């Protein structure tokens, strides 16, 4: 883009994409903010005029608000921790030369192709059902009382289901990163007297830090808005009501669009706070 002419040509060429993306983002955002200042009850009189910050105050002071923020953060944090730890270990394993590595790699990626709704249903009915689930049979085999997972350990169960879905993604990204590690570096560390665990800690993990950052950032964006897994399992009961699910309940179950929109604005704020924290913690990895 050296000359004046090519610069302006580039601007014209890029304009449609930029305008489309901007509109795509701005229109829903503006509508959310617009509705959040209205008393809007579709089945009880429709648009009932402006209410100022009433919706914001009601959503914030509702007894369901803080528990939902907490549930959201616990799920995001739990899934991130599990997918990163096991993703790194799986990537290190899959990087070893072994027989049938290609097929194993495809199998590992498979859960990512299963739709969230389907995988949640499969987990709920096949594994976690307290009467017919595989876990129940396993527990009974050892003479233990079957656990009714989704009511007794509801949050953990959802974290397990979502982790199972996202582990392939983390593994895939971390595997490609681990494959780009120069083997001479590991050999140099070996010559320098570093045993395998220290080689992993001092060479492999720092090499993966950038990939881990990418995985954390991308997963956080998607995990803050998980919905299907909660909808088909607990319906938001047993402390699994996330901010996303709370907004859904306000808009569709209580038919209160204004209140839900105010919740949506809070969700944007929460996402930004989380993003800023993550950038602070791991973002410096992206610079070097």
């Amino acid at each position, binding site marked *: 883009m050296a000359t004046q002419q090519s610069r302006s040509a580039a601007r014209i060429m890029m304009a449609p994409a930029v305008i489309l993306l901007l509109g795509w983002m701005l229109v829903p955002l503006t509508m959310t903010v617009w509705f959040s200042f209205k008393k809007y009850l579709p089945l009880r009189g429709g648009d009932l005029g402006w209410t100022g910050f009433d919706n914001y105050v009601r959503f914030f002071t509702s007894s369901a608000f803080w528990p939902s923020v907490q549930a959201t953060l616990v799920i995001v944090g739990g899934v991130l921790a599990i997918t990163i730890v096991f993703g790194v270990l799986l990537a290190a394993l899959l990087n070893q030369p072994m027989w049938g590595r290609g097929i194993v790699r495809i199998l590992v990626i498979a859960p990512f192709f299963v739709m969230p709704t389907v995988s949640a249903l499969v987990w709920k009915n096949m594994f976690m059902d307290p009467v017919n689930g595989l876990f129940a049979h396993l527990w009974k085999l050892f003479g233990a009382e079957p656990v009714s997972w989704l009511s007794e350990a509801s949050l953990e169960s959802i974290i397990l289901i979502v982790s199972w879905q996202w582990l392939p993604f983390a593994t895939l990204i971390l595997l490609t990163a681990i494959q780009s590690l120069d083997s*001479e*570096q590991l050999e*140099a560390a070996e010559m320098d007297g570093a045993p395998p665990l220290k080689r992993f800690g001092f*060479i492999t993990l*720092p090499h993966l830090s950038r990939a881990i950052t990418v995985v954390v950032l991308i997963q956080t964006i998607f995990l803050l808005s998980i919905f299907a897994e909660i909808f088909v399992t607990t319906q938001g009961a047993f402390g699994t009501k996330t901010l996303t699910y709370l907004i859904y309940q306000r808009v569709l179950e209580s038919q209160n669009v204004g209140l839900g929109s105010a919740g949506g604005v809070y969700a944007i704020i929460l996402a930004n706070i989380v993003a800023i924290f993550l950038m602070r913690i791991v973002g410096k990895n992206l610079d070097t």
Partner: protein
Amino acid sequence: MGRIVLDKISKSFGDVEVIPPLDLAINDGEFTVFVGPSGCGKSTLLRLIAGLEDSSGGHIRIDHEDATHVPPAKRGLAMVFQSYALYPHMSVRKNIAFPLKMAKMDKAEIDRRVEGAASVLNLTDYLDRRPGQLSGGQRQRVAIGRAIVREPSAFLFDEPLSNLDAALRVGMRLEISELHKRLKTTMIYVTHDQVEAMTMADKIVVLQAGVIEQVGSPLELYRAPRNVFVAGFIGSPKMNLLSGPEIADYNAHTIGTRPEHIAISQTEGVWEGTVGVSEHLGSDTFVHVKCAAFPEPLTVRVRGELDLSYGSTVFLTPDPEHLHRFDAQGLRFA
């Protein structure tokens, strides 16, 4: 101490035998260069000594102790890799200190040794930089620094200069030779560049297809190459190797004469030829002469400047004092 003895060492990858059983002794304090064309097994041999590859047979003895199954870290050897293999996320200081930290050395002692190595290698100003912020030559020096702080019994270099530009390579060559003179530690150096081998080595080991063709000092190899391969590999420009009916008088299958041992004349000589391309280096001129008697053109080295026009007729006379004769198996006989 750093005496390394290879006893019938061999290496196969699957069914492919890369190094057939081989014997070699490297004395303490010697600068040994493994040289050969790419794929000749010289790097594999170095990795066997380092312990990064398991040998398929035979024994490695380091300082009279059997080290065949000793892990690399315990062999007391330090290696400088072709890609330098610096740890990119650590500062230069941490890179150099890494082997000492792994040896759980005392903090003050680590600092003292790192500072010492840095001042020897002119790296003091760069200790807090990362490898990515250094030039090629500086990275090379960090890699050497990481090797010398361990005070190993021998250094292993795996083509350390191949990633540098020509000018830097000459400088680093001198620096490594200087380091060897100062430390008096055994060094094993792998290269495909015979100039590096000639200029640095106390002892050159010429390898081809995993087999040692000849072992000797640079000048021994230059004066008396054991066979045609060594004759053609050592020396720059390459030795002229001639065969055919024209050399029947010499009683040999092949004769070899170095470019500097041929006299060129415009009036008389043994072989008649036409002048091809002349390469003018200022101090020397390399003239390529096409003789009807031989399929390959001969290279002749002339001191100083010489003006011969392309295509003119000249006569060549080999110096009988420096003529090498080889039998049908390619072995040299006096």
